């Protein structure tokens, strides 16, 4: 059984279509990066998975219908839906007591252990902590819940680079054990490149790319072409071309490596590079069609 199984998810808010037939399968033990521009439907997709919003189509999370069985599902699913949703009036110690009280899978000693590594005083109110500290508290709470699926929606938004790095480091070192599944959305694409195992691009409510990271690395190649090879590179039909210091950089999809090596220096592109190419390619073909 896949952790998440979605078939033809559709969601409309008035005239705008947030999800336009999303098919998505996430297997157990994967760390999936869900990447898309603003308004692409990322949060709506996550809300549907979490049972926070109803939608058309077929959706099973851990074998349950999230909209109908949210209460049961939340025993096995955790989420951090953007930063700063912890109640500001609550003391850190109260947050620990509350989660320990309502969540059967919460290990309070573990959470206290995580917090002991930080400089956060348990008696302080959440509202008095810095943004980075609040994120640490939330992560400590969530990592101490023995859940099967963790959903992170822009978990590091507005945090400085030290906290951001720390956030993903603890997630990988202290939480991820190969059996849990994590789905994360972020605009800071570069910082999850080496964290995720699977990549999903979403655009205008549709999945436009779905690939494991190893296949992604084998599939895409970026060539900084020698000036005299530029025309030859262009003839190969690159996905995207950009200029850096007067030299053309081409992004290729599924071309033979040896052939590309002949054109210039070849390297694995960043997710961000492919993201830009895939998103603008759609626009270009849409313009061409109209």
């Amino acid at each position, binding site marked *: 059984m896949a952790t998440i199984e979605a078939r033809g998810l559709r969601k409309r808010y008035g005239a705008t279509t947030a999800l336009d037939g999303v098919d998505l399968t996430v297997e157990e033990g994967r760390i999936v990066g869900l990447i898309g521009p603003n308004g692409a439907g990322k949060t709506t997709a996550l809300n549907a998975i979490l049972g926070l*919003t109803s939608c058309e189509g077929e959706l099973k999370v851990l074998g349950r219908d999230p909209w109908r069985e949210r209460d049961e599902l939340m025993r096995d699913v955790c989420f951090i839906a953007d930063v700063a949703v912890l109640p500001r009036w609550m003391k850190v110690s109260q947050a620990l007591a509350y989660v320990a009280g309502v969540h059967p899978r919460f290990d309070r000693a573990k959470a206290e252990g995580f917090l002991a590594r930080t400089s956060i005083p348990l008696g302080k109110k959440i509202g008095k902590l810095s943004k980075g500290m609040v994120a640490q508290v939330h992560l400590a709470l969530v990592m101490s819940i023995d859940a099967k699926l963790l959903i992170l929606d822009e978990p590091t938004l507005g945090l400085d680079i030290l906290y951001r790095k720390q956030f993903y480091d603890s997630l990988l070192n202290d939480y991820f054990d190969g059996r849990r599944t994590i789905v994360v959305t972020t605009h800071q694409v570069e910082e999850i490149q080496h964290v995720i195992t699977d990549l999903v691009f979403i655009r205008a409510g549709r999945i436009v790319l779905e690939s494991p990271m190893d296949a992604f690395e084998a599939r895409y190649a970026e060539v900084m072409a020698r000036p005299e090879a530029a025309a030859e590179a262009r003839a190969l039909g690159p996905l995207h071309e950009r200029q850096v210091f007067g030299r053309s950089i081409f992004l290729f999809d599924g071309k033979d490596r040896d052939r590309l090596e002949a054109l210039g220096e070849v390297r694995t592109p960043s997710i961000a590079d492919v993201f830009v190419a895939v998103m603008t390619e759609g626009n270009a073909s849409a313009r061409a069609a109209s």
Partner: protein
Amino acid sequence: MKGAFYWSVRRELWEHRAVWIAPLAVACFAILAFVFAMGVGHFVKSGNFSALPPAAQRQLMMVPLGMAASMVAITGWLVAVFYCLDALNTERRDRSILFWKSMPVSDLATVLSKAAIPIVAIPAVAYALAIATQAILLVIAGIGMGSNGADFATLYDRLPLGVMVVSFAYGVAVHALWYAPLFALMLLVSVLVRRPFLWIVVPAIAVQLLEKIAFGTNYSGAFIKYRLVGGMTEAFAPGAMQHPITQLSQLDPVRFVTSPGLWLGLLAAALFLYGAARVRRSKEPLS
């Protein structure tokens, strides 16, 4: 293990400390005022308490006791009103609804835990504080009069202390049950709209105005008045509320528990709370 409901109620009490601080502050204020009255001799002007007839002695003491208890109870009621208008609204405004919803606590358990604050917790707190305040006032009166040489022991005999404790408990329970639909309606409105206060008050006034203009009648006004103050009329013997309660025969629990107004109200409360839970299910943070 204590359940999600227990911890949901506790977290409400952590967040809304006014639930006990406001009535406590009023109780302290009542005690201070009474000490002041004793000190300047305003309470027993003549200083000759023993010379008063027994009924006057009783009346003299029952007025401050009754006032102190009522003030504490009314404060509790006001706190309950503001709590209900706010409870399901703030969690959406400060986005914390996303945290609460990430816990395995159902919408119904959340709504019921919030309803328990005005219907159970606040009345219980108000009752305990009011009785404690009355006890402290009696002790202060005893000390004050004793130092004036008055025989205060007779006052304790004159006062129907047992009846007061029981009838006040009854009054608090009557209010809690009678106002349950009002509190439940406020909770429902607080999850539905951005400005719950306006959405409660404006329709209540508009309906009366429209009825007055269109039909020249005021049934809606009578209905609102009944839901606001009708509970006491149903719960006490006719005319009993004009005097301090000194006898249990002034209470009429049989009429109260058999009044359709009570049961229709509780039915409405149940529907409103169920509705609030259903609406909260699909609500997202505001902004």
